[in-house]
């Protein structure tokens, strides 16, 4: 039974009904009926199929759990087939659990045939999942939601023009929905402590720079060999000096050693230490640059500490060349700033004609000094393990030579931050030192404090007026600080932090309804909702002005406004926030891929693959492309790292940027299906997993989330001395009713992607068994064939698989619409929302399922303007 279809039967639009998925594996029908509760709230019950269940219960259960006996205090002949409340749900859950565990019927009783059991398990699993969701519904109320970390960061950027690192903030919550869903958010003391501490840090930095003059940008250069070579030479000279003493007949004591043994070692090591250094220095090019290699004398080349202005950004350049023999995988530099990776660049120059690689960095507000380094990109394993599997020589043999590094900055944004303007308006911009201020200066400052706080709060509270009570408390703290002799900025710091830890800032508050009938939010609130949806930040001046001018009620104006917001670079927040969650990209972090075996999965590929997912979606947003591009596209959005990983044979761009690249006609790559991150998520870290891929595909592309695996079902013992193909091991799933009830539907989907290995690379054959052990492994051809469960429709290869998904594009549309709706509104999807989803899908389908039009349809829908019940 299709999860998505459960509960929607009577709501499906005509179009959807025609080509709706009808699951033939398990023909079960779940009907929905709405029951009015006393509160007037529609709680919809999930109705079970009595035809299917009654006979099963009668045959296998009622003898012991019926009118005559109620073993275990359980009676099943009177059980309700309508799940109206949690008691009924729990009774059925118990039935499902004991069946799943094989505990019932007891061993000495007749056991149900697999053919009878499977549909019962499938029906109960689906219905109970549906009822769990149904019973948790809130009637469309949006629980007050707190800024999640992305929104907090972007809001601070909007107000202060500062970049907040995530570690300054409390971690987002854990309940599994979108991070915008207030219902799942918790708040406890540590949240407050973290917010207050973050507020102090932000306030401190913002105040320190609020009246600081901007500096002229300038270029600085560092020649990494200057100090490094001097150190090498010093080392050699020192060794030579000690050797000379020994040669002149000195003893071990003369060179500070303890005994003859140490001296023997000292002599023996001369060549490996001083000699090797000298040989390094004797190479050409070492007088003008450094050869990088992890185990060598230069692991990294860098800028040294650069004093930075947190309001600005810097450009960093590495000028580097390759040794002629450098294998492709070892041509990449990792660029990092104070230990955080900024990106990867492919070096294309030679030793005589090095290439220049530029990367931009905007420092975090917590960084006063930034150190930018380049080092070789490699797997997260020791270099010796890495290089032994690659051509290009031994441990010490570097492939990349860095001539010099340069950095240029600061580059300031066009406008001063909101905070800077408020501060300068209140306290001026002369930046007079505290010790030069007199009593009159302080008095002027004190009298300006109220205006400063009020102006700041208006911005921070998204237009809401601050209360008098709170303003007074801010002034109290300010005065307390002043009375303890603190200077202006010191005294302002804590009150500003209070603003940033107050409910009015942290929560996206909307006024409750004016009357029980009217649930519409006002235009300014709507503008912020819109802006947090698309940009994860408050509405900007232009949008607020339009809201106040009543323009947001004009559907056409709104549509073009939304489209232009999507084309703005700030819509990256949707790719970063919404899409990664829709894809469940966090699963990738839990996949431990053994990099000693899978060399291709180096740090650059791992990091880039996560970015690729976001860039793909961002490209779709920017170009308003159809969702079907997720199934198949004639382009990819890659950086140089992935271009090589995918074997695209493209010239290096030399920078770290992602760009849209057209694929050759015959290429199998393209879409979300062809991305490394999606394919690696569908692996167990050792080999591709059609099971996980099938479950992901079913959830994302067929809008049907498989139920969580029931706990306690013993794991299949797959251990076998014979190397087996994945397909054979999975066959076991289908033999056991408890597994088959769910796995029948999605396992056969996962095979469609079998031509992509766990790293997302194409293969026609696969090695099974113990990789690296020839005796215990064998090579077999890939079979990428399976069936779509809904119509038992077979596919024979990736192309047919993609075509099958295309035929079901309405399910992808629905899956995406539901995701956007939940993310944008900040609440879980409820039964009563099905009609809204139908309408949104219909509107988007009329526009070829284009993502921008889908988003417009979500925002234009009346529920997007609806607030809570009173």
């Amino acid at each position: 039974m299709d999860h998505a279809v459960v509960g929607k039967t009577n709501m499906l639009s005509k179009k959807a009904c025609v080509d709706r998925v009808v699951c033939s594996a398990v023909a079960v029908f779940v009907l929905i009926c709405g029951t009015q509760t006393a509160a007037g709230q529609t709680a919809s019950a999930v109705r079970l199929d009595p035809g299917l269940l009654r006979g099963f219960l009668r045959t296998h259960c009622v003898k012991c759990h019926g009118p005559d006996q109620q073993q275990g205090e359980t009676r099943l002949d009177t059980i309700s087939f309508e799940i109206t409340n949690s008691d009924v749900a729990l009774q059925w859950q118990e039935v499902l659990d004991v069946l799943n565990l094989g505990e019932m019927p007891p061993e000495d009783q007749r056991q149900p045939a697999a053919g009878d059991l499977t549909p019962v398990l499938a029906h109960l699993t689906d219905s109970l999942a549906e009822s769990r969701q149904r019973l948790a519904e809130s009637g469309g109320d949006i629980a007050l939601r707190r800024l999640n970390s992305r929104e907090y960061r972007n809001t601070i950027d909007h107000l202060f023009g500062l970049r907040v690192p995530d570690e300054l903030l409390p971690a987002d919550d854990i309940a599994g929905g979108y991070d915008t869903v207030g219902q799942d958010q918790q708040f406890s003391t540590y949240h407050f402590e973290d917010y207050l501490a973050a507020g102090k840090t932000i306030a401190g930095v913002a105040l320190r720079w609020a009246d600081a003059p901007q500096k002229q940008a300038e270029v600085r250069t560092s020649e990494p060999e200057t100090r490094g070579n001097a150190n090498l030479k010093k080392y050699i000279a020192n060794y030579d000096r000690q050797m000379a003493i020994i040669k002149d007949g000195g003893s071990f004591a003369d060179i500070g050693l303890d005994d003859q043994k140490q001296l023997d070692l000292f002599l023996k090591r001369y060549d490996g230490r001083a000699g090797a250094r000298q040989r390094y220095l004797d190479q050409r090019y070492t007088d003008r640059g450094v050869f990088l290699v992890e185990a060598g004398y230069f692991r990294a080349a860098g800028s040294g500490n650069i004093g930075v202005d947190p309001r600005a950004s810097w450009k960093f350049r590495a000028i580097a060349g390759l040794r002629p023999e450098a294998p492709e995988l070892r041509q990449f530099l990792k660029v990092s700033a104070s230990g955080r990776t900024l990106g990867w660049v492919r070096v294309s120059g030679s030793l005589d004609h090095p290439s220049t690689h530029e990367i931009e960095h905007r420092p975090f507000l917590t960084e006063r000094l930034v150190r930018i380094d380049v080092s070789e990109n490699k797997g997260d394993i020791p270099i010796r393990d890495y290089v032994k599997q690659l051509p290009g020589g031994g441990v010490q043999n570097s492939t990349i030579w860095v001539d010099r590094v340069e950095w240029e900055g600061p580059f300031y944004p066009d406008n001063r931050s909101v905070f800077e303007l408020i501060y300068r308006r209140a306290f001026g911009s002369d930046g007079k030192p505290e010790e030069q201020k007199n009593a009159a200066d302080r008095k002027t400052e004190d009298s300006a404090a109220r205006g400063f706080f009020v102006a700041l709060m208006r911005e921070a509270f998204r237009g809401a007026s601050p209360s008098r009570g709170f303003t007074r408390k801010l002034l109290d703290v300010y005065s307390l600080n002043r009375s303890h002799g603190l200077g202006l900025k010191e005294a302002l710091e804590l009150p500003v932090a209070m603003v940033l830890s107050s409910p009015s800032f942290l929560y996206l508050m909307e006024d409750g309804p004016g009357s029980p009938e009217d649930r519409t939010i006002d235009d300014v609130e709507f503008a912020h909702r819109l802006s947090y949806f698309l940009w994860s930040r408050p509405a900007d001046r232009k949008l607020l002005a339009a809201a106040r001018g009543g323009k947001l009620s004009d559907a056409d104006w709104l549509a073009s406004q939304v489209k232009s917001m999507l084309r703005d670079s700030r819509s990256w927040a949707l790719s970063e926030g919404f899409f990664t969650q829709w894809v469940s990209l966090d699963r990738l972090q839990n996949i431990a891929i053994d990099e000693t075996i899978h060399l291709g999965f180096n740090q650059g590929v791992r990091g880039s693959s996560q970015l690729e997912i976001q860039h793909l979606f961002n490209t779709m947003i920017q170009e308003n492309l159809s969702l079907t591009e997720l199934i198949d596209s004639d382009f990819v959005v890659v950086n140089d790292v992935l271009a090589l990983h995918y074997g695209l044979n493209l010239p290096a761009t030399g920078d770290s940027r992602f760009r849209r690249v057209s694929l050759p006609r015959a290429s199998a790559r393209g879409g979300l299906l062809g991305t490394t991150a999606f394919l690696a998520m569908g692996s167990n870290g050792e080999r591709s997993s059609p099971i996980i891929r099938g479950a992901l595909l079913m959830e994302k592309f067929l809008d049907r989330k498989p139920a969580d695996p029931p706990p306690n079902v013993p794991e299949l013992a797959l251990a076998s001395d014979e190397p087996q193909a994945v397909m054979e091991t999975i066959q076991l799933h289908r033999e056991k009713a408890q597994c088959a009830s769910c796995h029948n539907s999605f396992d056969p989907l996962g095979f469609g992607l079998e031509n992509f290995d766990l790293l997302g690379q194409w293969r026609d054959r696969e090695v099974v068994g113990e990789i690296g052990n020839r005796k215990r492994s064998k090579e077999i051809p890939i079979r990428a064939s399976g069936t779509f469960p809904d119509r038992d429709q077979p596919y024979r290869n990736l192309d047919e698989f993609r075509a099958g998904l295309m035929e079901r594009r309405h399910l992808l549309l629905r899956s995406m619409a539901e995701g956007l709706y939940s993310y944008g509104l900040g609440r879980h999807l409820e039964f009563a929302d099905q009609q809204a989803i139908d309408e949104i899908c219909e509107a988007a389908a009329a526009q070829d399922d284009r993502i921008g039009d889908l988003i417009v349809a979500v925002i234009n829908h009346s529920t997007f303007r609806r607030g809570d019940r009173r």
Partner: protein
Amino acid sequence: MSITLHNRRALLRAGSTVLALPFMESLAIAKTAGAVVPPKRFLFIGCGYGFTSETFFPTRAGRFGKIGLTEGLKPLERHRDDITMVSNLTNLGATDAHGGSTSYLTGANVSGTPGKKFHNSISLDRVIAREIGQDTRFPTIALTDTSQGDGHGAGLSLSWSDKGHPIPGVTNPVDLYHQLFGQNQESAEEREFRLSQRRSVLDGVVADLQSSRRVLSRTDREKLEDYLQSIRQIEQSISREVEWANTAKPKSPVREPKNPMDGLQALKTFQRLIVAAFQTDSTRVVTYRQPITPILESWDFSLGAHSLSHYNLDPRRQEASRQKDVMFMELFADLLDLFKQTDDIHGQNLFDSTLISYGSNLRSGHGLRGCPAIYAGGGGKKLRKGEHIVLREKDTPLANYWLTLTQQCGVSLDKFSHSTGTLSQLTTG
């Protein structure tokens, strides 16, 4: 034949009301002047993913001296007369096959509570601390791993607040050292200024809430209640800070640890500091959500905790999983040694005065039934020692186990979470 249905229903019926049960009434705090009664202490270690089914869990009941220790338990040989393993326990309500710790100490019905996607309730350590944590500087201390995918599930430590919110744990031994033993350099005046600033901050943000012009809906008000509650709790912690302000922290019995540490060093340091915290009577209740993957890394295992938990996939994995069990039990045996070698400030042996509990609500692989439960120490005089006890009923609620241990160690508690009674099989006479 199973009786799960009955137990389970008992829990589920109790549902979310478990939260509201008035623990406090039965916990009338007896703050005896002078504290003549030697203190009892509790240490709860949560180990995330469980153990290798075939080689860790004993099958026969009886004294270890007679039935011997399994391969996995072998490192505890020198403690075999002081440890007890209990079989047939299940943490009802736990459904997450990757979550060995989320409701381990709470017993809450995490995903099946009506009206909620996620639900948790107060953890046992917090309940115990209400009674025995009042005389120490720290009522309880929560320590935790930071790794992902070690089978602990949602949460920030084993501890959950009275509202079921996750409580963050200390992750770095150096931080713990400073909390326990770092001497405060602040003068009385500086402290007074800092605390008055702090009070004003709290008053301030509450003022924002109370005098807001906003007309809020019911659901919004409920959310803001969480905010208010946390502010009230911070206010209480300020009062506590004032109370302890003039008492100097004890001198540390161990040397100050230094960063960086690898996973194994951090775990060993935490073990020493736990003992030091009890030794100096800085706290009487500690929880530790123990890491796995960082320790495996220290041991040069190439697979992480989750991969090892699927040990049936491949004989090499099973071998590694068995090895992992043994090595973790060696660490546990070392911890028991430390307890035995140490006396507290009252001259009482730490092992004899502490209940040490080790376990998870995951058994092995991803099974939640028959979870591993080991206890040791002399916290409860009547608790049976040195044997493997097989409870008569399969899926006996883990909450019953917690209730029994807690009561036997002198904490007056007559119900905990979904408990349905105590376990007479654990006690003598």
